[in-house]
């Protein structure tokens, strides 16, 4: 285990704990984005062949798509609850 793997492992553990402990929903989404970057890099470093790159790209595009949908729904729900309080 060299410096790169050690760095990515420490970062993913720290970010995973912060996803669990944060209360704000938007900040939780930002930490989740950082964790997706780390897992995609770990997949590419674990499988040292071109197929691993394809898997990493597919995982990254899929997770970005779903976090886009989550952020859009957070906006819709905030608008709905704001209108409800009026």
């Amino acid at each position, binding site marked *: *285990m*060299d*410096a*790169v793997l*050690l*760095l*990515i492992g420490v*970062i993913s553990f*720290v*970010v995973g704990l*912060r996803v669990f402990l944060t209360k*704000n929903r*938007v*900040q939780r*989404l*930002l*930490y989740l*984005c*950082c964790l997706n*970057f*780390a897992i*995609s*890099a770990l997949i*590419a*470093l674990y499988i*040292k*062949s*071109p197929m*691993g*790159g394809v898997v*990493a*790209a597919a995982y*990254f*595009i899929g997770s*970005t*798509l779903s*976090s*886009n949908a*989550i*952020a*859009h729904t*957070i*906006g*819709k729900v*905030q608008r709905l609850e704001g209108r409800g309080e009026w």
Partner: protein
Amino acid sequence: MEVSWVELIKLLISTGVCWTNFVLIDTYFGLPRKPGVLGAEVIGKTLEKMGGDLNGGYFMGNIVCSPDASAGTLMAAIFYYLLGFKGGLIATLLVYIGNRLCNDPGYAGTFGTFSATVIIHLLSGFIEPRYFIGGMIMAIFTIQGLYHVGASKVLGYIGRKLGMI
């Protein structure tokens, strides 16, 4: 499991290169100016309410909601590590398709991937491509994972300094 000083210096240099690359390209193509989708606007408003900067919040929301130059730099590093120089061109095509899926024009991601491929190819004499993967993770950690309010202030300051807001 010992870590030598040479590896740390290479990691720090690659972190600086990746950070400069994607922040400058994203700022130049106008990410902090306006939110592209509804989710980026929500993230910007929330960070402004917490005491941060509005335009920096738009920048961070655009990174989360669509694959921009940050994702392009990571994909370029991964495909250069696996396939060599022509892997970077394949990564450019993949990022363009991903941008089209997320309802975005996609010039920032494509140009960022191509410039990252060229920079890694120029620097590959004395820094191996696997250090750029770690450097990119470290760069995205300083923006999205460490302290959001301070990061949005720094990004807004850079955007105003370049005159792109």
